[in-house]
């Protein structure tokens, strides 16, 4: 009950503070005199949602992030399991991962521009790299944390290694994997927006940066709010899928 009252009230208070600070043109070290107020932003948002361009940008960004994220999820889980379960795969891949992992994905923009024929693939590539490592690492840890007794039990019931993979490893790592997917989705948004700002010609990130260069501050804030909402929705979808897939966990650790 408290949550239902306090949560909207908290948001409303923030909006009100924003309105007061900008409407009164407050200049107390931080300057709000040129900062757009919530009403300006709402007006701009109402204008933008009447144009097809807004939806094209949202769709473009969503296609990019979902493509990169899906590739990262499939490869991150597959290679995470391979590295954790096969010493051979570990020897071949682990050194590569350790070297590439510390590089911030956004620093790969020049590489992406060199490697890919079009901007589009480059942005998806950067999003993929960003989401890949959290998913890989969490999968690897989840595989190593699996109780051996499950695997031993299935093998002495006649299960082959492939069977163990399908019946023990894949379902068993899901709680850990979803942790990685949540983190991955977060950094994927950071990187898709940054990449669009640098090299895009569509998308929410590109549009936000465009608005900044033509001194359209309400437009910048509309872009930011759009990114925030999209990020919230996609993370929520991952969380929901995770809770559904791991219903067997005791409630405390869910």
């Amino acid at each position, binding site marked *: 009950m408290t949550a239902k009252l306090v949560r909207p009230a908290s948001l409303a208070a923030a909006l009100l503070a924003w309105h007061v600070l900008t409407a009164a043109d407050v200049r107390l070290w931080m300057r709000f005199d040129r900062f757009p107020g919530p009403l300006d932003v709402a007006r701009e948002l109402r204008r933008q949602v009447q144009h097809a361009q807004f939806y094209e940008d949202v769709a473009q960004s969503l296609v990019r992030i979902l493509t990169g994220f899906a590739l990262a999820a499939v490869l991150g889980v597959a290679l995470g399991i391979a590295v954790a379960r096969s010493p051979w795969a570990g020897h071949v891949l682990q050194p590569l991962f350790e070297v590439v992992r510390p590089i911030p994905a956004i620093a790969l923009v020049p590489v992406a521009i060199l490697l890919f024929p079009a901007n589009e693939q480059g942005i998806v590539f950067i999003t993929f790299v960003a989401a890949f490592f959290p998913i890989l690492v969490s999968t690897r840890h989840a595989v190593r944390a699996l*109780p051996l*007794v*499950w695997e*031993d*039990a*299935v*093998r*002495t*019931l*006649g*299960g082959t290694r492939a*069977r163990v993979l399908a*019946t*023990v490893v894949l*379902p*068993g790592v899901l709680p850990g994997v979803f942790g990685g997917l949540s983190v991955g989705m977060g950094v994927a948004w950071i990187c898709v927006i940054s990449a669009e700002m640098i090299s895009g010609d569509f998308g929410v990130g590109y549009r936000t940066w465009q608005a900044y260069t033509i001194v359209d501050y309400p437009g910048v804030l509309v872009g930011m709010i759009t990114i925030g909402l999209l990020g919230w929705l996609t993370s929520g979808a991952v969380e929901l899928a995770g809770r559904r897939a*791991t219903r*067997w*966990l*005791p409630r405390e650790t869910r």
Partner: protein
Amino acid sequence: MSERSALTLHAEGVALSYGGTPVITGLDLDVTAGEVLVVVGPSGCGKSTLLRAFAGLLPVAAGRVTAGGGVPVTGPSRDRALVFQDDALLPWRSARRNVELALALRGVPRRERRAEALAWLERVGLTGKAERLPRELSGGMRQRVQLARTLAAGPRAILMDEPFGALDAQTRGTMQRLLADVLVDAPATVVFVTHDVDEALLLGDRIVVLGPDGVAAAFRRDERPGLRDLILAELGVAVLKEEAA
């Protein structure tokens, strides 16, 4: 439920180590087809390690482990099922689906699995609990599910590693009677590891006391009066030897 026959197991001059430390050296042990052999011994004497070797999960450091009259054990197989103390059920599968897994691995067609799994659960007294997840069952019920799953796999040898060790005394008594009951119509050899001498006397056709140098003593049930004291004395000796070492 199967025409498969019980399996003999042999260990010949077997040495085993666990995590780099040798726990058994020069062990000779024959398990005859269809008998219930109980292995007792102080903790750390290598009882569980021996079971893992019979199951094919642990390679021997020296000697030979064979099954069914000379066939070397090189890896795990459906012939030799291992029953664990606890938490061996897959926690995301209901009791029924855990049993169905064993049936699937045995090659039972998909449409027959449900009915057969329910029959096995009924056999261990879990009618009405089939759709529960392991965490929704008590420790004793989980061991019943594990027993049903093991029997459903149709093993020719059942290797039990202190299966009732985590249960309270009353539940343990119930489970011992249930096990004795279900084993009557299972054509399987049983190797049962425990540190509880009374459990050994209740279940075992034959009781082997494992010491630091392999088999310290072997007894046939009802072989002589006062067997319990004999075993306890033997265990006492085994413990003393271990402490001296």
